[in-house]
Every structure is written in structure tokens, then in C-alpha cells.
């Protein structure tokens, strides 16, 4: 675990010296800022007090596109540069390597998410008697769980490729698929329980965003994280056998 933490730390620091991470952060904050302004105008016009959801709802959707850009290089780049040979011949277990990469990516994405706290902070002064603090806490907790799962998917995919572009699109594809995965059960009359359980949206919008903390949703995101981290370790190990 010590080794995983060292790797995570290095990855976290690395984000602050790569233009890709800045570009992704810039786009997220720009679009969120624009939507925030738009929602405020809308609320003013139709006379209702906006809550924290005007920030969080679009953010979850935007994260689907931002996080692949943040995770795509994590392992793929080590493979294309050959530096993976360095870490896999050091006394580092395969899972420590994968968990370290995931943790580094997660910490950066979490930092980015926490920066957006500025919007509810501003909003708190604009509405009376202030925004609902409970919704703020559960909403952000949900978003962090979402981040954990998306980064795990990204790391697993990244471990399969030595090409970052391929890694980006496969991660994005998997995330979009998870986003719409319950569609068949809705079109078919809500019969397919497995697919509707897997739906990425249904575990955050009706619950965390509405102030509900349900253990099933926490289990969903954490088990997604664990599954993909496991897959990532397996991919790294099979790479040795090739």
C-alpha cells in the first residue's frame, strides 16, 4: 500500500505539469460556469430559489467526457514509453501499481470537483435563507463516488492499450454505455432488472442528488471501482505473459 501511495502521489503531482489535465479542467469549469450563469438567470426570471443541483446535475454528465481525458495516459503511456518495464521490475505488486494509478487520477478529479464548491458558496449568498446544506453534502458525496468509478474504468482501459487515444475512446464508450444501459428495459416495459440496476444515472440522480444516502448506491459505485481495478490488475499481469 505504501508503494501505491508513492505512485499516486507522483501521478497527482504530474497532472499539474501536463497541458491535457489543464485543458480538461478548464473546459469543465468554463462550461459549468456558463450553465451556472444560465440557471441563475432562469431562476431570477421564473422566481424560484435554485439549489445545489444546478451545479451538480450537469457536472456528472460533463465528468463522463472529462475523466477519460484525465485517465487515458495513466498506464497506456507507461507502455508506449517503455517505463512500465521500470515499475514492473521494481518490487511493486501489480495491484499496487494499478491502485496507485487509480488513486492518483481520483485525487486529481476530486480536487477538480472540490474546486466547483465555489458555485454553491456563491449561490449561498444569493438565495435566502441560503441553500440546503444537506443536499450539498450528499450531492458532492455522490459525485465523488461517481469519480471513483469512472477513474477505475479509465485505469482498467488504459492498462489494455499503449495508445492514449484508443484508451480515451474506449473509456468514453463504456461510460456512455453505462449511462444508457437501462434503455432496453424501459423500451421493453421495465422487465430487465440487471440492466436497470447497472444504470449509472439511477444511482445518483434520484438518491444522492435528492439528499438520500442509500447503501445500495454506495455499494454500486464501490463495486464498479473494485471490479475495474481488479480487471486492470489482471490486464497488467497478462501483459507480462505476452
Amino acid at each position, binding site marked *: 500500500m*505504501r*508503494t501505491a501511495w*508513492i*505512485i499516486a502521489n*507522483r501521478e497527482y503531482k*504530474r497532472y499539474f*505539469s*501536463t497541458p491535457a489535465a489543464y485543458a480538461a479542467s478548464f473546459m469543465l469549469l468554463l462550461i459549468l460556469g456558463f450553465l451556472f450563469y444560465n440557471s441563475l438567470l432562469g431562476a431570477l426570471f421564473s422566481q424560484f430559489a435554485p439549489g445545489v443541483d444546478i451545479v451538480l446535475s450537469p457536472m456528472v454528465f460533463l465528468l463522463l467526457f472529462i475523466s477519460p481525458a484525465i485517465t487515458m495516459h495513466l498506464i497506456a503511456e507507461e507502455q508506449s*514509453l*517503455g*517505463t*512500465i*518495464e*521500470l*515499475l*514492473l*521490475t*521494481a*518490487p*511493486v*505488486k501489480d495491484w499496487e501499481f494499478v491502485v496507485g494509478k487509480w488513486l492518483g487520477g481520483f485525487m486529481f478529479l476530486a480536487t477538480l470537483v472540490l474546486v466547483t464548491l465555489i458555485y454553491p458558496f456563491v449561490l449561498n449568498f444569493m438565495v435566502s435563507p441560503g441553500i440546503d446544506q444537506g443536499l450539498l453534502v450528499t450531492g458532492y458525496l455522490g459525485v465523488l463516488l461517481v469519480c471513483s468509478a469512472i477513474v477505475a474504468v479509465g485505469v482498467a482501459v488504459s492498462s489494455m492499450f499503449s495508445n492514449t487515444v484508443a484508451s480515451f475512446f474506449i473509456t468514453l464508450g463504456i461510460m456512455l454505455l453505462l449511462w444508457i444501459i437501462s434503455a432496453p428495459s424501459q423500451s421493453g416495459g421495465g422487465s430487465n432488472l440487471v440492466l436497470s440496476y447497472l444504470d449509472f444515472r439511477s444511482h445518483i440522480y434520484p438518491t444522492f442528488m435528492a439528499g438520500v444516502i442509500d447503501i445500495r448506491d454506495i455499494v454500486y459505485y464501490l463495486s464498479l471501482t473494485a471490479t475495474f481495478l481488479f480487471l486492470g490488475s489482471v490486464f497488467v499481469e497478462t501483459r*507480462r*505473459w*505476452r
Partner: protein
Amino acid sequence: MIKVEDLTKDYGARLAISNLNFHAERGEIVGFLGPNGAGKTTTMRILSGFMPPTSGRATIAGFDVVDQSLEVRKRVGYLPETVPLYNDMTVFDYLRYLAQIRNVEDVDDRVEDVLDMVNMNTRIDSYISSLSKGMRQRVGLAQALLHDPEVLILDEPTIGLDPVQIIEVRKLIRELGKEHTVLLSTHILSEVQQMCDRILVINKGQIVAEDTADKLEERLSGGRRVAVQVAGSGEGLDSVLQAVPGVEDVSHMGEGKAEFQTAPGVDSRPQVAKALINAGYDLLEIRSAGKSLEEIFLQLTGDSETSRRDDEPAYWSGRGNEESEDDEDDDDKE
């Protein structure tokens, strides 16, 4: 220290190494010599714990490279063929990161020590992306030394270095070889000759010869071949030479030049020199013309050896009728 038994690795259709057997003891520098694609890198990757073999066994310091991989990796310093560097880090940060991963004590001191060893202490705060190829190679070597490993595995350690750096690195490796076990690969023949206690010649995944450089030369050339040169046309030279005991197989090599073979174990050069001077010749040169390591190497590895034997020193630059593999070697030669 290193023990390899029946090691085999196949990449699907291609057999990279087959039934490799060798060993290396503490304080020994073993040179792995072979053309590109002979299986040197594959063997080194297996020994460093990067990939498992298809079959066979390899142990380092008594630990199995597959079953006790982590123990092996703690004891091995490995410099891969493509130097694994992060361009976005400074030399110091890079080494510090790896030292932490390897759980080295007194990280900062150790980093400075290894940078001193490879003579890179002036560029400690430079970004790796700004370094020249030779410097990058030396940082890669520093990385392999961080945890003071018992076994050093160096895949072409002197590639890309300028002559001064090559001498420095060779000196460093010889120094390290006193206490550590060093396995290094190269296709530069003079390098193994100068640095290694023992040479393993590998070709097409198999060891074709194993000995010290001197013995390898002697064994394969069978006796000593000597060339002499005298002033003038050297008329009657051949008959004078033939009269000296122990001299066989005299051949005339041109104006005042001749070559002969001495019987195995006999050095007839002093007698030859005396005989020539007594016969009134002005002796200009007498030298050993034994098969060079290059020739031996070609004899061991090449199929086209006979065609090359006659065309004198340009053994390595046999362009045109050679496979592209050898041409690559040519470019890399010092």
C-alpha cells in the same frame, strides 16, 4: 548468483530462446554477446522479473524469478534496452521517486551518491527531456544502482555514449563488478573483450559458446597464427621460416610479408626473429595474427562465415549480401 536452467520463451509463433543454461557468480562480469534478435533482451527481461519464461527455471540469489519475483526484483538493478525515463521530471525527482518505490534509506543522499557514480551531479535539477542521449543513458544506469543491488542486468549499457563516456561507464561497470554480479549485453565485441570476465555467445536463442575472451580466441583458432614483415622484397623468406622448428603452414602474403602457424602451445616467435636476423633480413614487424573475436563470433553465429573470411577487416560492414540485422549492428558500432 544467477542460475539459468533450460530457460525457454516463445512469443506464440516465434521461439525467442530455447533451453538456455548458464550461471554467473558473485563478483563476475558476464557479457552476453549476440546479433540483434538473438534473445539477449528476452533473457534479461525474464531475469529481471518483467516477464515469466515459457518453461525452465531461473534463480537469482537463490530466489526463483517466477515464484519469488518480488524478492528477485529487490535484488536486481535493471537497465532496459530503451532507457525508461519520464521526460516531465527532473533528474533528481525521477531518481527520488524510484528510490522511494524501492524503499531506499536516506533517499536524498543515495540519489546524490548514484549521480556522483555516473558523473551526472551537475545536471541534478535538469529536466530529463533536456538531456542528451548519453546523459539519459547514464541516468538510466543511476536508476539501476539506487538500491545497491546484488545483481546488475544491463541491456546495452554503453549505447549512445561518446568515447569518453564509454570509457567512464566501462570503468564504473568494472568497479561495480568487483562486488556485484553483472550481466550485460552488447553487440560490440571489443566491449566484452575489455570488460567481461566471461563471454556467452548467443545466437538464435541458444548459447553457442561460453568462455573467457582469450580462451575463446585460442580454442577456436587452434594454435597461433603469426605474421612477419621484412624490408625489401623478402626473397627466400618462406624457406627461412620453414626451417625454424615449430613453424608450419607458411604462406607468402606479398612483398616481404609472410604468415605462418605455430604448433599449439609453442611460441616460436623469438626463434623466428633470430633466424630472420641471422639470415640478414631487416625485420620490420612480427605480430600475432590470430583470429580476432570478430571472426570467432562470425564463425559461431554466421551462416555466411566462409564468404566473409577472405575480405579482411571489413567483417562487420559486409553490406549488400547481408541481412538487415547485421546492418543495424553496424550503425551501432562505436
